[in-house]
């Protein structure tokens, strides 16, 4: 791929790319650690993961700032414009995923001594969501539209798991109403994993826009807009 004639500009874009990859890697770790902390009732790991969120928050602020400066100084066009504006959106989704991992860790602290057991599908949901983030970032790095589409397809699997977990937990709640409070915590964890997968789907949609230049979000909206413009 050709490099920009302005070397400073090329370096600024590379710096943003590197910072985003580092942030995404940290978020992946947070998903994995939050799942392991919950499963193993590892309070220390939960606390460490909560602390890691500060680094993700900082990365969001710094990457946003670097993108704003590029918009102001360089007025990027075409693929550069798509890259910079989408990175600004991607860091928001990554930061939200990290917040959800923090939520899971906080529930881990609540459930440290609880009698309820974590639903067997929750570790699977966690693994799949982590894998989705990994694939989405690979798609971003490799500019791979097909891989990004794979991520979007995987979201359906996580949704299916969530609905199954939800039904199973409802049964448990009826069986053990005295543990309702704890079961609701477990249900929340499943919901947050499902939300993480949704945010990761956003990442994949952005990668497709960045690579191919077409916006696949909300197909019904796109269709209505096309009809309106004749």
């Amino acid at each position, binding site marked *: 791929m050709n*490099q*920009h*004639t302005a070397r400073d500009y090329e370096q600024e874009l590379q710096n943003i790319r590197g910072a985003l990859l580092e942030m995404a890697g940290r978020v992946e770790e947070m998903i994995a650690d939050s799942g392991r902390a919950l499963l193993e009732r590892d309070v220390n790991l939960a606390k460490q993961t909560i602390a890691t969120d500060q680094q993700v928050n900082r990365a969001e602020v710094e990457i946003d700032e670097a993108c704003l400066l590029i918009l102001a100084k360089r007025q990027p066009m*075409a*693929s550069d*414009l798509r890259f910079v504006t989408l990175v600004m959106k991607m860091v928001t989704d990554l930061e939200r995923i990290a917040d959800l991992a923090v939520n899971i860790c906080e529930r881990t602290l609540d459930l440290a001594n609880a009698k309820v057991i974590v639903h067997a599908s929750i570790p699977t949901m966690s693994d799949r969501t982590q894998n989705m983030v990994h694939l989405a970032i690979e798609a971003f790095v490799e500019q791979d539209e097909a891989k990004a589409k794979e991520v979007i397809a995987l979201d359906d699997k996580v949704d299916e798991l969530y609905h199954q977990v939800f039904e199973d937990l409802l049964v448990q709640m009826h069986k053990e109403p005295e543990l309702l409070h704890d079961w609701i915590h477990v249900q929340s964890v499943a919901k947050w994993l499902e939300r993480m997968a949704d945010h990761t789907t956003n990442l994949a949609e952005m990668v497709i826009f960045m690579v191919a230049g077409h916006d696949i979000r909300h197909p019904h909206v796109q269709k209505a807009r096309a009809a309106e413009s004749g």
Partner: protein
Amino acid sequence: MMQQPTTHARPYRTAEPDRDMATETNGIKFRTKDVKAWYGDNQVLHDVCMGIEEKEVTAIIGPSGCGKSTFIRCLNRMHEMITNARVTGAIELEGQDIYDPAIDPVLLRRRVGMVFQKPNPFPTMSIRDNVLAGLTLTRSKKRDQGDAIVEKALKQAALWDEVRDKLDARGLSLSGGQQQRLCIARALAVEPEVLLMDEPCSALDPIATARIEDLLHDLRDRYTIVIVTHNMQQAARVSQKTAFFLQGELVEVDETNTLFTSPQDKRTEDYITGKFG
């Protein structure tokens, strides 16, 4: 010597392949077909086929020497005024070949006005006479309605409020940005249908540039405007269509919003992202 354009026996084809260039002008002000241009032996345009929409701003971008200024100079037959310059192909204004021997180039230039890179008011003339210069040169009968024409043209060029009390002052007494708007007023005074602008803001400061861009916004409902610019952000701001030229070829023309976000051709992408050369 300028070479007369070739006559095509069969219907022309443009970027809209199903349209007959020779007979349909619906919404298209200019159509060019296989336009080639030379300075001596140096060919600077290669087979440019392009439709220019009526009452829109079309921006032409490209690196220095890509032929963009030559192209617009072909649109009002100014290219042929240069020694050893020639052009072939066909250029139609509302379906009429502008290189037809029956066409008077002076009258054509009344329909297709031009504003240049450097403001060029006539140095010895007053502001009023500068505005009326085009009418004088073309011996228009409207010269009698001078005051009304001066006021209208200066208002259209967003200069009236700044010069209404000094119409007899010399054009050169104005600032660079005002001089450029005076030149636009001069071009508008002859009531052209098309305004060609060759880097009209490149010698102006950002405020004067913003005034010209505002002006373009006001004028685009009434005139067909073709602007050559090196400033891609300006092209993105002021135009509805943008054409990218490279080494004398029209590489890509598209909706401005599309071209600057998702160009189809890699050469366009490389140019507008600064990955060129």
